[in-house]
């Protein structure tokens, strides 16, 4: 029981971060039908933006205020990066085939990674610990299952950001415009919606959520490096597909499920002969099963292809 609860806590934590990143994938895919491969790298850029903000302001000690400052700063920088990527890489090729845009996304992703490796090297950096979770003893649940302060804060902050997104998309005028563009871009344009601005805004929101994921991950695992976004980004995309791409609650559900599945493979896999090195394969195995059995995802609606 202890192990089970412990794995569940760890899984929900990782899953919450996957969910934050998956939201960006799902929003962009919903609007442009584009797998934004660079999104994983925006998550990395967010983590590094937080790192350099902390460095330049000399923030290191455990303080909730510092975390808020770093988080907001990183989100703003990542939003700008996302908008720049959209404006200068994706918008010019939007009219071409989907393969062109996909390759463009891969190109942008490679450019960001290689630029960071060339500028600062591939060695990992240590992100400051703002929550003091390394020094403070964790809280205990059900006997031995431990939950650290960082885990609680990460989980609550992720949930808060997701609720904020839900509010933006469903209760504001901008949200209505976003849903309209996602439903049909050309009709939305005819209804007087500035679609370019809405797409730009979607990238900004998605990127800032990814940056929040980056900073929060760094509170949990302080090693950040320029290639950290590749695998996490792919898994977050899998989460988005699992939940039903284009569907916001689906992305959250998918993220949490992938996180839990991963920690359970690490925690219980060895009892049934699955080495913990398979943790990175489990997300893809789930993806393939989902696509074969229910291609529209768990919460996605089946869309009939029109001729």
């Amino acid at each position, binding site marked *: 029981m202890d192990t089970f609860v412990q794995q569940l806590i760890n899984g929900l934590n990782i899953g919450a971060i996957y969910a934050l990143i998956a939201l960006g994938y799902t929003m962009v895919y919903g609007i442009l*039908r584009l*797998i934004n491969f660079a999104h994983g790298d925006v998550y990395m850029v967010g983590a590094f933006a937080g790192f350099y903000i902390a460095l330049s302001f000399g923030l290191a000690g455990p303080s909730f205020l510092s975390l808020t400052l770093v988080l907001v700063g990183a989100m703003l920088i990542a939003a700008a990066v996302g908008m720049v990527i959209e404006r200068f*890489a994706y918008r*010019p*090729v939007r009219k*071409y*085939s*989907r*393969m*062109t845009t*996909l*390759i*463009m996304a*891969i*190109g*942008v992703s*490679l*450019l960001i990674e*290689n*630029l960071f*490796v*060339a500028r600062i090297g591939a060695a990992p950096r240590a992100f400051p610990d703002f929550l003091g979770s390394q020094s403070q003893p964790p809280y205990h649940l059900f006997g031995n299952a431990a939950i650290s302060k960082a885990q609680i804060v990460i989980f609550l902050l992720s949930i808060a950001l997701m609720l904020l997104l839900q509010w933006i998309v469903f209760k504001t005028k901008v949200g209505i415009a976003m849903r309209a563009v996602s439903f049909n871009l050309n009709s939305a344009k005819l209804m007087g919606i500035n679609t370019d601005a809405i797409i730009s805004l979607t990238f900004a929101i998605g990127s800032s959520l990814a940056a929040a994921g980056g900073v929060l991950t760094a509170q949990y695992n302080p090693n950040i490096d320029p290639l950290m976004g*590749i695998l996490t980004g*792919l898994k977050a*995309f*899998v989460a988005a*597909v699992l939940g039903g791409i284009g569907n916001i609650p689906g992305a959250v559900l998918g993220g949490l499920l992938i996180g839990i599945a991963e920690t359970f493979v690490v925690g219980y896999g060895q009892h049934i002969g699955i*080495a913990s*090195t*398979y943790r*990175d*394969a489990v997300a*893809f*195995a789930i*993806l*393939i099963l989902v*696509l*074969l059995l229910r*291609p529209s995802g768990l919460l996605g609606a089946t869309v009939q*292809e029109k*001729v």
Partner: protein
Amino acid sequence: MPTFIKRILGLVIAVVALVGANAMMSTEGLFGFGIPYYYAEILALTGIAVILAVSLNLITGFTGQFSIGHAGFMAVGAYASVFMTVYFSQGAERWLTSLVGTTVAQSLVFLGVIIFGALVAALAGLVVGIPSLRLRGDYLAIVTLGFAEIIRIIILNIDRVGGATGFRGAVAPWEGRPIIPQYANFTWIGAFAIITIVVVYNIVNSDVGRALISIREDELAAEAMGVNTTRYKVISFVISSAFAGVAGALFGHFRQFLHTNDFQFIRSIEIIIMIVLGGMGSITGAVLGAIVITILPELLRKLPGDLYSYRLVIYSALLILIMLTRPQGVMGAKEFGLSGLKRPQRRPEGDKPAGEKGVPIAQQSSSKEVEQGKEHA
């Protein structure tokens, strides 16, 4: 000249050229003309890249199915063939040596393991292809990526092929060759590159090829015309995987060392970049792309000082630039070759062309309004 004489002549020239080129790559050289090992290795890797790019072009360029898992099939072929060489080929080689001599015996064994690697990779392609080719576009891309990643992680967990330490030869408790023999050389790699090009060229110019291209142009229309799209997609996927397996087998027996890090996601992307650069749906373009992408990073190594560390940045910026300026690739779907040098044949007097070349008849009679209408749609 009759066609078959032309073909035999072409074959003879190709064999002589390959053997000659291979001789140049040793230290003694051919008639004193030799090139250093560093360049010889780059040339051999270029040949392997040509096989990979041309075979991926069959599924991505001609059939229009976006696969980002080519490195996974290459890994399957590499590990399967090297596994056979290391653990199960010694007896056969000894027996064959007693019959036909060392050189021929080694060649036969190598040919055998290459075919084995290709078959295993083709089987993997079939297993992956049958379920996933029912999916379209982006989903197929992401599933092939997932499969390649799973294949890599499974190989990483097999102790008999070295796992995370890499595969250099027989692993301790099992008996076999202590090191992977270097069977592959430029002759082998070049020969298989030519075979790949010829096979893909013949497929593309056959009725199967027309079916594949019809799938690329419009899958629904192709299906409506009676093309069994899933069947043809699986065929092209399996052939493409088999050649990726051949490339893997050659790679394993050339490098004499295999590690799963050589078959990561980025490797698949690199192969895609080759065909994107060359132009999707162009065999010569894919060859050109493979050559440029393999040699370019080595040339960028020569950049002075600090610029060297930016070589991968330049490389990815180049990709973005090509997509922005020429999204159909440098060659587009055009082929280039010696036929461009031929004197164009004169059309007899009075024989008017039926219409503009390369434009469907239906569009030619169209007036300006129709053209404008198309643009609005």
